């Protein structure tokens, strides 16, 4: 199970890579493993839309489960990964790379303080597996 150090995490198993005022968002290795074979992704926010922290931004489905993805931070969507719906299995194979879901212009960087760092998130995953 992979927990990259340069990312921030949520208890709903999203990750966000913060670079200046831009945040790239996806779901974690732990989440893809729990869902198993992912067959469908749909983003429910379009480029240009603004939403608050915790707003639903995507739906992910595997054969026997579904998960909603929520924004780890509020902001305006600056890009959506248009390729992902054609290759949803990338979420299983490369959750932190090719399978990014969307990118936002972060509205309030101070909200990032409430996110988990890699070690805290790893501990949270261990707790749930036990």
């Amino acid at each position, binding site marked *: 199970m992979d927990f990259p150090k340069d990312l921030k995490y949520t208890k709903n198993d999203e990750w966000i890579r913060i670079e200046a005022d831009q945040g790239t968002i996806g779901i974690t290795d732990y989440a893809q493993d729990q869902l198993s*074979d992912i*067959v*469908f992704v749909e983003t429910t926010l379009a480029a240009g839309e603004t939403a608050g922290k915790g707003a639903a931004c995507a739906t992910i*489905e595997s*054969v*026997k489960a579904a998960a909603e993805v929520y924004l780890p931070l509020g902001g305006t969507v600056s890009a959506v990964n248009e390729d992902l719906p054609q290759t*949803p299995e990338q979420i299983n194979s490369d959750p932190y790379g090719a399978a990014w879901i969307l990118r936002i212009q972060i509205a309030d960087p101070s909200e990032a303080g409430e996110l988990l760092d890699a070690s805290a998130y790893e501990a949270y995953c261990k707790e749930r597996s036990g």
Partner: protein
Amino acid sequence: MIEPLVYDLSSPGRQGVTLPELDVPATDLPADLTREAAPLPELSEIDVVRHFVRLSQLNHSIDTGFYPLGSCTMKYNPKINEDMARLSGFAHTHPLQDPTTVQGNLALMYSLQEWLKEIGGFAGVALQPAAGAHGELTGILIIRAFHRSRGDLGRNKILIPDSAHGTNPATTAMAGLQVVELPSDSRGNVDLDSLRAACDSSVAGLMLTNPNTLGLFEEHVLEVADLVHGCGGLLYGDGANMNALLGVVRPGDLGFDVLHYNLHKTFSTPHGGGGPGSGPVGVGESLVDFLPGPVADIVEQGGDDDAPLYGLVMPARSIGRVKAFHGHFGMFVRAFTYMRMQGRAGLRSVADHAVLNANYLRARLQSTYHVPFDRICMHEFVAEGRWEDAPGVRALDIAKRLMDFGFHPPTNYFPLIVHEALMIEPTETESKETLDRFIEAMEAIAAEARSDPETLHTAPHTTPFGRLDEVRAAKELVLCCRPAWLDEAQAAGSGG
């Protein structure tokens, strides 16, 4: 073992039926509104018969083997039921005929309503809902309407235990209400402290399955009812597990205000590969006026020698109709037949033997399979399909391997609160010999899990089909067959 698709069996020009010649003058067809003949296959009668008979042979069914599918009550479906439902006076009466011309149907519906009232301890029953989930929606809409009729507009929450069927929260959302989930305690009951904390003036009601999906009778059911009523809420009963309660206890006596029955579980109407079911709803006195309608009623009392006159009546403050016409009448005939044949004592015996069979399996299997809530169960119980010394073996493997022994697997991965759940409901119609053979198979599989896990991972081996690729189905989404020859035929204008 592959059977071709019905379209693949088609040959242009073949016919499966004969129809009468037109015996009236023809009228011009409206040219701008008519099509070439619809793109349907062309088969002879024998092609159709063989095709569907061969398909049927690929199914496991109650009539071919044991079907211990938890929460589904796969009991034997008596054959007399089928004959009765097909009597011309039932199968070929129109729902909108004048009530005076369908007194037999209305009398049957009235009796069925009365019997269900008596069995459940309710003041009124409506037969219209078409299935369990439909009954749930009906019941929750009744609860909502009741509160609103009293000007109590702030009640928008429904409390639902975490062991509940998924239909309970889905129903709540459809009715425009919010779900509040309640945890279970260590004995599989609703956690009373959590319930106490959740009970306030925003609660419309609590949906309780009793026996719950663990097959356990809710030990604090009277306290649960008191707590919910105490905050002004109503108690909804999911009657999926009514088979355990026939003649044993009446939900209405326990404080349930609304309950749906499943005629296709408790009262022996067949499951049909996924319906039709029937989900009548029973309610207490204060909710009778809110029932969906119309319901069958006596509109003119009979005398000593003549029968009463039955009619269809809309309850005074009805939530409205929940489907066209009067419900799944064909299922009413079957359930009526069953209840007549069982009688009062027979229905109690149904519950007794359903509970006896489940406890026998539980007692015999618990040395091999962990049963997480270990107490006397009702008509079903939940075991765990995993062992520490057999890593990698899952409930799914056990389920699939059971097919090689000729058994349908139990429900797996439900309820969600048990890891690797195997939910086993034998029903009363299975003999001790059948249960013993099932126990032997379960024990053999438990041994294989240690000695030869690969045989489990790759099971089933003796069925007509192996494990199906569900990922491929969900990704490729082939949901409809439209052979190329159909489009070619259409384009060539050969229809008409």
